[in-house]
């Protein structure tokens, strides 16, 4: 270390503190759970149970809120947790890092997942995700396909989570989660996210902030009526 300048040492010290936010950790973990179960049909039973638990909790939340989006997401997760015959037969050999994933699992979000609180999906004609079951050359390639495929499901899950937090009387969490969802690149549920954001701000007593978000919603999506 003696041949490094003080500045370089300080840069390294700053780098040691670099880490993902709590929201990013939670989001990534949810995706990893789904991906791991979908890719490894013979994964430990605990993994399947965890994924099913997510689905069950989402389902319960959906009933409580009457939010059909949650039911749709739960349905999608259940589809993903059910290994296909093809994928089961594909995982019989010990794996190497390089050849990675042999097959990806078909994931198709049902149209119901895209019906948000009884209203038609906003400005998203092709919201159903098509993913063809096909061999993937590398782990990177396969996981990339998965992340593309999962992006919308993940975003929908975050909106559902934010709605749940609102319902539980935790607008701070709702706001944090929904803003994280909205900040994701290629966010497709922005009208719903703005609606929840305004509701959360209002619940926190920030009427001015809520009004700004309402105005943004009306300006960007004048055709939307999300039952505020």
């Amino acid at each position, binding site marked *: *270390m003696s*041949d*490094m*300048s*003080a*500045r*370089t040492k*300080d*840069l*390294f*010290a*700053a*780098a*040691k*503190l*670099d*880490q*993902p936010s709590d929201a*990013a*950790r939670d*989001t*990534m*973990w949810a*995706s*990893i759970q789904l*991906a*791991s179960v979908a*890719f*490894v049909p013979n*994964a430990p039973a605990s*993994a399947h149970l965890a994924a099913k638990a997510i689905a069950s909790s989402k389902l319960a939340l959906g009933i409580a809120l009457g939010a059909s989006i949650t039911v749709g997401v739960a349905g999608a997760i259940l589809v993903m947790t059910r290994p296909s015959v093809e994928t089961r037969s594909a995982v019989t050999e*010990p*794996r190497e*890092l*390089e050849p*990675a*994933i042999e097959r990806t699992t078909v994931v198709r979000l049902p149209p119901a997942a895209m019906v948000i609180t009884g209203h038609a999906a906003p400005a998203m004609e092709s919201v159903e995700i098509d993913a063809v079951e096909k061999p993937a050359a*590398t*782990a*990177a*390639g396969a*996981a*990339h396909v*998965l*992340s593309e495929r999962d992006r919308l499901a993940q975003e929908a899950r975050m909106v559902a989570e934010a709605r749940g937090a609102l319902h539980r009387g935790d607008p701070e969490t709702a706001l944090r989660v929904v*803003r994280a969802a909205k*900040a*994701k*690149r290629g966010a497709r549920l922005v009208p719903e996210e703005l609606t929840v954001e305004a509701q959360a701000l209002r619940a926190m007593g920030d009427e001015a902030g809520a009004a700004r978000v309402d105005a943004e919603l009306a300006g960007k999506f004048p055709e939307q009526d999300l039952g505020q």
Partner: protein
Amino acid sequence: MTAAVLDFRLLYDEHVAFVWRNLRRLGVHPADVEDRVQEVFVVAHRRLAGYEERGHGPRAWLFQIVLRVASEWRRHRRRHPEDVDGGLAQDLERTEAEQAEALARREALDQLDAALAALDVDKRAVLVLHEIEEMTAPEIAESLSLPVNTVYSRLRVARQQLEAALRAQDRKSGVDHEPARMRVIAGGAR
């Protein structure tokens, strides 16, 4: 510790920051780092049964996956150099949300990453594992499948090259970085 008793959630909680940091230091763009972290842990989950503890914990094993994923990302980036908006929208939102101190640290990390980018990946990996992750030379040797002496020699050259890259940055920008300011950046919370 064996794969059978290795709790995957615990592995994630304890090492997600390690994976995140090293993907960033190996050049993965901030807009893509979450996806790549996910990819690392998906691969790790699939290979969990093959994991063997060799006295250094799972970091060496995870870093091998990190290296591979970062390498894949760089190849992808070369084939597809920019997104439609270059991630600009996301950067703007992030910038608006950050406080001044966090912004200063982000600038410092950007400087570090730019300087690290001047090093080849072999030397960069040794440097970040030693200086940021505080891994010992034997740990690094195991992570990268290298003789320990090679780790030392790469470390020495990497430090020299990094210093040179930072000096070149300063000359280019005409900025004189005061050590006192940098210490404030390094000491603050993000």
